[in-house]
């Protein structure tokens, strides 16, 4: 499958937004956590600042998100991971509500109650979880609902290569296969599960080969490339819409930052990231677009637009109010 020019531009712009959102967060996250005046001996305080708690950023992993979501509508469902921003943005969740959620503000997606690993949008049919492998079963359920309702909606579930060794992977793929559910299982292979490498954790080189165990198609995409993801996911989405059942896709991608912010990454070979960054997927798509007619000026406009939207989102988050403390005991039940 080949993307149209419009789709290429959409993917490019979305990748820019994601990258900018994530890189902006790198700095915002540190505000109030450094210098370590909070306590002696402390280099950093995770619980302080504007955005406390863990923060898992997806810079470098944009292609899998945009190459998948370009095929989806608001009727299709996504279940994401603990590293969910790129999926959420590509699925069309407003940057403002996303940023505000991370600031714990009442204007956030979940009124500040979820936090960055727990983003839910009923409108955009998006959910995620801080528990590794937890999205896959729920994706089966969303797809089952679509099937029962006679819709051609698909569900995409993203998970890391580390999650592919969790029991829920196996159970969900088997369930989706026997019930012929329109679920696209997409594994982001960024080579690490925190400090544990893919080789240390995974018995085979290609998780897509595990599709054989469920009698469904399995494809691996190399090279962290949005256009290649577009192609492979496009086929899988079409299969799903046609009632042909689930697919398993693995995408080789790259984690530019630490597992979470504050990760010293002592386990990672020096220069690994700088080498990866030399082959950046956004740069590559930019070049492809420039080669095929996008002008420098158009490019600048896109960049300005994306920058502005990200800046607005963070400003909105800063300015928003915290939820009233009375909300703490609300919403346990609807």
């Amino acid at each position, binding site marked *: 499958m080949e993307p149209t020019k419009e789709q290429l531009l959409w993917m490019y712009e979305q990748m820019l937004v994601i990258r900018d959102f994530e890189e902006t967060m790198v700095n915002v996250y540190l505000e109030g956590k450094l210098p370590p005046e909070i306590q002696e001996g402390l280099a950093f305080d995770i619980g302080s600042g504007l955005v406390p708690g863990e923060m898992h950023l997806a810079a470098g992993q944009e292609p899998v998100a945009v190459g998948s979501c370009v095929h989806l509508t608001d009727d299709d*469902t996504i279940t994401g991971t603990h590293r969910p921003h790129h999926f959420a943005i590509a699925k069309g969740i407003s940057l403002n509500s996303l940023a505000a959620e991370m600031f714990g503000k009442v204007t956030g997606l979940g*009124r500040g109650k979820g936090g960055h690993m727990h983003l839910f949008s009923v409108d955009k049919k998006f959910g995620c979880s801080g528990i590794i492998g*937890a999205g896959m079963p729920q994706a*089966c359920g969303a797809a089952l609902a679509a099937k029962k309702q006679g819709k051609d909606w698909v569900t995409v579930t993203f998970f890391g290569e580390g999650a592919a060794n969790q029991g829920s992977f196996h159970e*969900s793929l088997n369930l989706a296969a026997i019930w012929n559910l329109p679920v696209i299982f997409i594994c982001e292979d960024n080579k690490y599960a925190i400090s544990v490498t893919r080789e240390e954790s995974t018995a085979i080189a290609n998780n897509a080969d595990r599709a054989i165990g469920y009698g469904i198609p399995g494809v691996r995409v190399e090279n962290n490339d949005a256009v290649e993801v577009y192609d492979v996911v496009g086929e899988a989405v079409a299969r799903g819409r046609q009632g042909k059942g689930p697919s398993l896709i693995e995408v080789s991608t790259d984690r530019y930052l630490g597992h979470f912010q504050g990760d010293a990454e002592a386990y990672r070979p020096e220069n690994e990231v700088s080498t990866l960054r030399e082959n950046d997927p956004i740069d590559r798509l930019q070049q492809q677009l420039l080669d095929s007619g996008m002008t420098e000026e158009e490019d600048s406009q896109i960049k300005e637009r994306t920058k502005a939207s990200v800046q607005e989102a963070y400003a909105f988050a800063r300015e928003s109010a915290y939820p009233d403390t009375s909300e703490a005991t609300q919403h346990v039940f*609807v």
Partner: protein
Amino acid sequence: MADRELTMAAAISEAIAQEMENDDNVFVMGEDVAKYGGIFGATGGLLDKFGTDRVMDTPISETAFIGAATGAAAEGMRPIVELMFVDFFGVCMDQIYNHMAKNTYMSGGNVKLPVVLTTAIGGGYNDAAQHSQCLYGLFAHVPGLKIVVPSNAYDAKGLMIESIRDDNPVMYFFHKGIMGLPWMAYFTGSTNEVPEESYSIPFGQAKVVREGTDVTIVTLSQMVHKSTAAADALAEDGISAEIIDLRTLVPLDRETVLNSVRKTGRLCVADEDYLSFGLSGEIAALVAENLDSTNLNGSVKRLAVPDVPIPYSRPLEQTVIPQVAHIESTVREMMN
């Protein structure tokens, strides 16, 4: 409407069938719920009435299919999903307590998850350590799940209809020993009159199943019937026991318990769950927190499984699971 007695199993499946007729979004899934009708009969007859699309046998993949219930509920379906024995919760607890129970809260109330998770509890027939537990206290401990534990067919039907209509995750625990199965002895009080028409029983309303003046026995599920038998025996000696069937643990009807204790001045908790850090502690704590307004005649007593796995051998199992005689003798002691 003619009087009808139903077993608890029949009452549950009737409730499900009535709701399935009303609402196309209701469907049932679980291991052996279709062709077999549920190992404990809770879904008996549903496959014939509604077909394989709405009554679905699943593989042995509790994480996947219970997680799928959450996913389907988020999309507007109203799944009823069975965990065959509560003892198996350990293979799928994450989907239950971190997702089904929390997604609503974490979404700031935006995600609505009308799931009913049914499960079998209880011992007494020597099914040993991995098939005899109650564990409702454990689920009541973690936030986000309504906890329903009926003791008889009438309540079972009304509470099931309420469960299905609730827009929140409900865990519905049926004790095997009161389902009225043709292959397991049961306490007869559990099979009782059940109206054919649909009705619901609100959550959070404990039931005073027997009025009394000397002691309050707070209990639930099969233990209601054991308590009743004990109360009959006690009555012969002029000891008047009031029995409270909690019916739901979340929400918990604290007022009914406290009012009864205020009246009788004595509290005995009769529970089939493990003793420590659970239900019986919570009920006792309720009194401890309200000493100011209660006038207790002596210490609270708790009967429960004494923090051991359920042993297989019959004499041992009978020892660790509170029996009628235990309740009776405990209350007698309290009266001294």
